[in-house]
């Protein structure tokens, strides 16, 4: 179960304690996250909402090891990631995190297949094993027939499916999705949310989702609001599982 008012250690997959992130803009200090606590258990599907500039992306970047907090601790599967060196953090990301971006962030000069294969290049899998994983991931998200297409030849929805395939192909510990439907029309957005929901329910993936879209947030097992630097639990839309 997700919880936001925890203290001490727990058995949760992701344990965030007293997390602070302060940006400096000239002499001005911007306290984006202020002693934020959070537990996310394996298999949870959490949606983060909040006004623009409230720090949702900041939080996700910290959880994904893309940025380091001003203070506080982030423990994932027992690893205190705030203590990792930059190099260790990079390796940790490769093993544990699957990122889904608002703009898909596919590499335009690589085919859909090659884009999905990228995270596997950081594993010890053989070429044929990689092929198997890529094909499985692309089939799972429904773009098996688009492998040799370049990102520019894909629709928005297809592009994001490829992005999701890339995020999950190396079987990461959790998926971080920052406004994955923010750039899509209603229909494509619903299809992408169907897919993410299915990954959570059928594949048991741990999903952390940032969204402005209440319809998208509704799919999550828990919706948390980021307000004044801390998380507040909103109405729980559905019980997990």
């Amino acid at each position, binding site marked *: 179960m997700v919880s936001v008012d925890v203290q001490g250690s727990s058995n949760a997959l992701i344990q965030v304690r007293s997390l602070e992130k302060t940006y400096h803009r000239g002499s001005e200090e911007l306290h984006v996250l202020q002693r934020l606590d959070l537990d996310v258990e394996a298999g949870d599907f959490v949606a983060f909402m909040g006004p623009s500039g409230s720090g949702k992306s900041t939080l996700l970047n910290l959880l994904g090891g893309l*940025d380091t907090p001003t203070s506080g601790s982030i423990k994932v599967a027992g690893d205190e990631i705030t203590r990792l060196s930059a190099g260790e953090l*990079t390796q940790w*990301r*490769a093993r544990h995190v699957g990122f889904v971006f608002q703009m898909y962030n596919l590499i335009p000069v690589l085919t859909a297949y090659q884009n999905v294969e990228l995270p596997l290049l950081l594993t010890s899998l053989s070429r044929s094993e990689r092929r198997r994983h890529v094909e499985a991931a692309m089939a799972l998200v429904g773009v098996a027939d688009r492998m040799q297409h370049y990102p520019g030849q894909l629709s928005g929805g297809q592009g994001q499916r490829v992005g999701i395939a890339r995020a999950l192909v190396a079987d990461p510990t959790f998926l971080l999705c920052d406004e994955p439907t923010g750039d899509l029309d209603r229909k494509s957005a619903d299809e992408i949310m169907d897919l993410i929901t299915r990954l959570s329910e059928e594949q048991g993936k741990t999903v952390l989702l940032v969204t402005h879209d209440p319809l998208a947030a509704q799919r999550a097992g828990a919706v948390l609001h980021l307000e004044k630097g801390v998380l507040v639990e909103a109405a729980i839309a559905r019980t997990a599982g």
Partner: protein
Amino acid sequence: MPIPITYNLRSLRVRWTSSIVAVLGIAGTVGVFVAMLALAQGFKATLVSSGSSQNAIIRRAGATSEMESVLTRDSIRVIQDASAIERASAGPLGSPEVVVIAPFPLRRTGTDANVQIRGVSPLALKVRSNIRIIAGRFFQSGMNELVVGRNVALSYSGFDLGGTVRFGGGTWTVVGVFNGEGSAFDSEVWCDANVLNQVYQRPPNLFQSVTVRLASPGQFRELKDALTSDPRLNVQVDREIEYYEKQSRQLTTLITVLGAIVAVVMGIGAVFGALNTMYSAVVERSREIATMRAIGFATGSVVASFIIEALCIAFVGGILGCIAVLPLNRLTTGAMNWQTFSYLAFAFRVTPPLLIAGLLFALLMGLIGGVPPAIRAARAPVASALREL
């Protein structure tokens, strides 16, 4: 595993226009660099091929070139008695020689250039086995006759077979053309040494050098020891091949140094071209780089990837530069031989080692132009790069 090289190759293909400046800069630099080296190489090869390992050239001790040397007929007789010298029916194979220079008009420009005129012995062709008469005949002993190297026949007016030229106060008839196999002799005019002394009103018993043919190349040391220890002589003995190699050194060094300076100056420009191309590639692709970093590619992989990309640009530039100078190969040109003050014809030699040197130079420029942008690419903070649209 590193970032796949396909990524760089396709990126280059997609954005090829922005690489043109870098490619052309490197190509131009490599072209000039290889051309200069080919010039030095050609000059050196021409002089070195003039010498034979079986020949020795004997001059007065201390004379740096033939021009400064004097040998009397008596000492030449002593020299030719040495047992290491090959003997033919006509006697020991040695050619006592005198050299002068005289100006003649170049066909191409009409301006005068100095030609080296070598008075030789009638045995000279037996001593220098690499020289063959290709038209007419060899001069007759005692006559005002000339045989001319093939470059002389080609490059100067008046040296046609059967024609006459005037120099040194005498009138000479061209009776033959010889092929010196690309050596410095191709740029020389030969005549009877005794006649040359007469015409120039020099003492008849004085020569400048004697070139002898050894019975075998291995007997050089024996000859050298015999002659330098002989109390009647005061001479220096050199292998002919080394004598000419030494002659080439000054100009080859000069060309090489000049070439290096030009290459470095142009290279700096080319490096800035590469830097500019790569920096803009890094800026344009900051989101892609950040995405790869987010996925888990290490900073080292990003650095390597962009360096490889710069090296690809440099390689293309290097290949283009090499292709551009290939037509220079065997192209004949000329330069002043400062040791003899005469004009020497020689050909550019664009050899495989020079082309490889050119390519390595291109890669070096690519490396220097690629490293700083690659490091910037890897250093950029991932989170803020992803934030930018």
